[in-house]
């Protein structure tokens, strides 16, 4: 047999396989013990809890022995545990369903409740239209008022209901700018400090891009965005912004000029995390389907924390993206049911995609001399069709051979959609990191899909017949009616709208193109800085670690209601 072109003796997935299967990972036969649910601690817990809940509510519920396949429960083969990749934490699959994982919920909460609002226009209006003085001192005072008001407190009214601070403590506003002098003048508690949070090279790029403009990163209460929807974020924040300006700058509440300020302060310079979708999707703005892949790559902060490892940074985007776009967006908003989790977790468990991607890193270093551990724009490879084909083919073949050589690996990714997403992601990431071109990465993804389909005469579920077999025609060579660069695509891009196992990886391919170049951001510097904020409940630099914490029930989310409900 012709050999893979790179020798990797330390397979990253082997430790997980040994832990999971306790058998020789290269054996192609096993004894199926058919032990059923009892082999899983979590399923046993579900059975016990289901019984208790059924008794308490008087309506039957979780009863798998009776209800699953007429008496044949899950677990006729091994119910596997999963290592959340790179964390060393083994969890049960159930713990990675977003309903069972508070960290996953909080990641999406933290995105949906965020809005970025420019202050420059408001300040100009205050100065020129209303004759108010704006200084660092007044800005600090305004931010005090705003951090009082934004969670749901009154600032100018005589008699008004308010929200309990203990329920909305996750709500706040910080500001950031590229103006170092301004940063030094503001109270540190209110500042997302670019110099302190980013490596020097990235910080310099970000400050140059943002310049002297001053931006607010506003995070409304989790409980509010959960009770309402993504569209609420701009409305809630706008109302509190307006009231805070009126209160902090002692303005008349009815003067016509205040209308100018209201527009300038609330709406003129606003960036929502997601665009509104077409009416047929029936969603407001700030819902997952409207997040551009470039923006999502900016929300995830792996490149800030691991600037010398674009592969890892990209893999963090894969994890976060598959969780949000597959598990929550497609799996629940669009489809309903619980099955999408099984597809999505394949991309961020057991170090399998990690192994395939680092194989790609070794290959691009060996063949194309890409110094991927020192990201820069100078050694990027020209994204020709031949080079895309070469990288994608080698990484795809290597991945397929790993699945073949280690039957437990194949058993781990037991569904074709899982394998298809993982193999194509490795090809896409390797190519985008090598070329610095997101569309080259997407093109590699689609070649991998064709290779995979022909090699094994199977791919994923029906949906893979759509986007993956026409994707060659809408990537790399762009015609105006068919393509957009990956940065500007999103979950609602034509053909992407209903297919698990793709969108998170696409976002990572976009990110990888920039992480590989050493860019400080992929599409929007303002979003990059906003999600670097350590005060956010979810750490966007370490999505996988956070998911693992959620799985083992060590993640503390926001928006809890224990203050206002009976103790249990």
């Amino acid at each position, binding site marked *: 047999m012709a050999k893979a072109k790179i020798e990797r003796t330390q397979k990253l997935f082997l430790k997980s396989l040994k832990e999971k299967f306790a058998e020789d990972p290269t054996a192609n*036969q096993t004894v*199926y013990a058919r032990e059923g649910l009892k082999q899983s601690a979590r399923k046993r817990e579900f059975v016990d809890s289901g019984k208790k809940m059924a008794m308490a509510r008087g309506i039957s519920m979780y009863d798998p022995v009776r209800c699953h396949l007429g008496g044949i429960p899950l677990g006729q083969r091994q119910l596997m545990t999963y290592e959340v990749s790179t964390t060393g934490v083994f969890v049960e699959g159930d713990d990675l369903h977003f309903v069972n994982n508070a960290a996953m919920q909080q990641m999406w909460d933290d995105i949906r409740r965020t809005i970025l609002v420019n202050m420059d226009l408001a300040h100009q209006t205050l100065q020129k239209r209303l004759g108010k003085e704006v200084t660092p001192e007044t800005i600090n005072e305004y931010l005090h008022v705003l951090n009082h008001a934004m969670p749901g407190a009154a600032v100018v009214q005589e008699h008004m209901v308010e929200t309990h601070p203990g329920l909305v403590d996750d709500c706040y506003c910080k500001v950031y700018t590229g103006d170092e002098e301004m940063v030094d003048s503001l109270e540190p508690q209110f500042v997302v400090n670019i110099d302190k949070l980013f490596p020097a090279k990235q910080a310099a790029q970000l400050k140059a891009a943002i310049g002297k403009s001053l931006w607010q990163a506003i995070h409304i209460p989790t409980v509010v965005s959960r009770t309402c929807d993504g569209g609420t974020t701009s409305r809630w924040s706008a109302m509190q912004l307006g009231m805070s300006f009126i209160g902090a700058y002692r303005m008349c509440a009815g003067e016509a000029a205040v209308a100018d300020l209201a527009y300038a302060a609330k709406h003129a310079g606003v960036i929502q995390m997601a665009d509104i979708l077409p009416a047929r999707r029936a969603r407001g703005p700030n819902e997952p389907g409207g997040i551009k892949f470039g923006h999502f790559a900016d929300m995830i902060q792996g490149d800030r924390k691991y600037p010398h490892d674009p592969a890892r940074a990209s893999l963090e985007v894969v994890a976060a993206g598959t969780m949000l776009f597959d598990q929550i967006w497609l799996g629940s908003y669009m489809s309903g049911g619980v099955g999408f989790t099984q597809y999505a977790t394949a991309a961020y468990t057991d170090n399998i995609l990690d192994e395939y991607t680092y194989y790609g890193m070794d290959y691009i270093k060996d063949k194309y001399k890409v110094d991927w551990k020192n990201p820069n724009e100078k050694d990027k490879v020209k994204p020709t069709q031949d080079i895309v084909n070469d990288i994608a083919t080698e990484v795809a073949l290597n991945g397929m051979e790993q699945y073949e050589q280690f039957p437990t690996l194949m058993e781990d990714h037991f569904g074709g959609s899982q394998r298809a997403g993982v193999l194509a992601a490795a090809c896409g990431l390797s190519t985008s990191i090598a070329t610095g071109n997101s569309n080259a990465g997407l093109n590699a993804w689609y070649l991998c899909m064709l290779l995979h389909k022909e090699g094994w005469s199977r791919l994923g579920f029906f949906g893979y017949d759509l986007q993956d077999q026409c994707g060659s025609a809408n990537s790399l060579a762009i015609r105006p009616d068919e393509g957009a660069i990956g940065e500007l695509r999103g979950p609602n891009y034509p053909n992407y709208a209903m297919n698990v196992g793709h969108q998170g990886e696409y976002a990572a391919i976009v990110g990888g193109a920039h992480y590989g170049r050493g860019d400080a951001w992929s599409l929007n510097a303002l979003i990059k800085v906003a999600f670097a904020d350590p005060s956010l409940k979810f750490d966007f630099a370490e999505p996988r670690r956070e998911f693992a914490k959620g799985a083992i029930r060590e993640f503390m989310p926001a928006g809890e209601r224990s203050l206002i409900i009976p103790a249990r």
Partner: protein
Amino acid sequence: MAYKAQFGPGSSIVAENRRKYMNPGYKLEKIRDMSDEDIVLIMGHRAPGAAYPTAHPPLAEQQEPACPIRKMVAPTEGAKAGDRIRYIQFADSMFFAPTHPYERSYLESYRYRGVDPGTLSGRQIVECRERDLEKYAKELVNTELFDSARCGIRGATVHGHSLRLAEDGMMFDMLQRCILDKKANMVKYVKNQIGEPLDKEVKAGKPMDDKWLKAHTTIFHSLGGVAYRDDAEYIEYVQRIHSLRTKYGFMPVE
């Protein structure tokens, strides 16, 4: 010059098998003899001997609109009679089953009329009029396209294609629709394709040995089979299709 189908590229035995199975001019080797009744029992759509339920009256008895397409296309026997559309679904082990999902869909499209194949990773379904289905299904299970241990007839809860084999060499089946009678070296179906117990066992033939499987399979597999990487012509062909689609959309002229 009339178009002559090539059925795909490749210089390996895997590629050659794929071409053979797709080619309607190639006579598939018969290796077992399941009866009409056996097939009907395993599919579970009707009782053996029962009349075919119909979805509409026979075409001869209903007024057909004046349609040039209907004049050009002769209906199948099942369509003529107004049969229901029914299905058979297969799961194929990646450990060298003779056929695999896309290969099944391709070969059915070349060989059979009036079929609607559906292709997934762990299963492949083909739907058509019921009496046509029984005829096609008989060929699909009685010839070299099928191995009783590495292929399964599974309507639901299909998984097994990617899993390790059981200790007796059978593909995993959660519902254990078929079992290996070791003494007789015979696979027997004890449940129909959706897992309902059968009143009597249906013999599905002896499992083929590894040598036979590797000589007849249509999957590349580097663990004991033909590595995909080693069929350079195949790889090159896929790359070429991809490159042409990238450059010229779906009109790939060079």
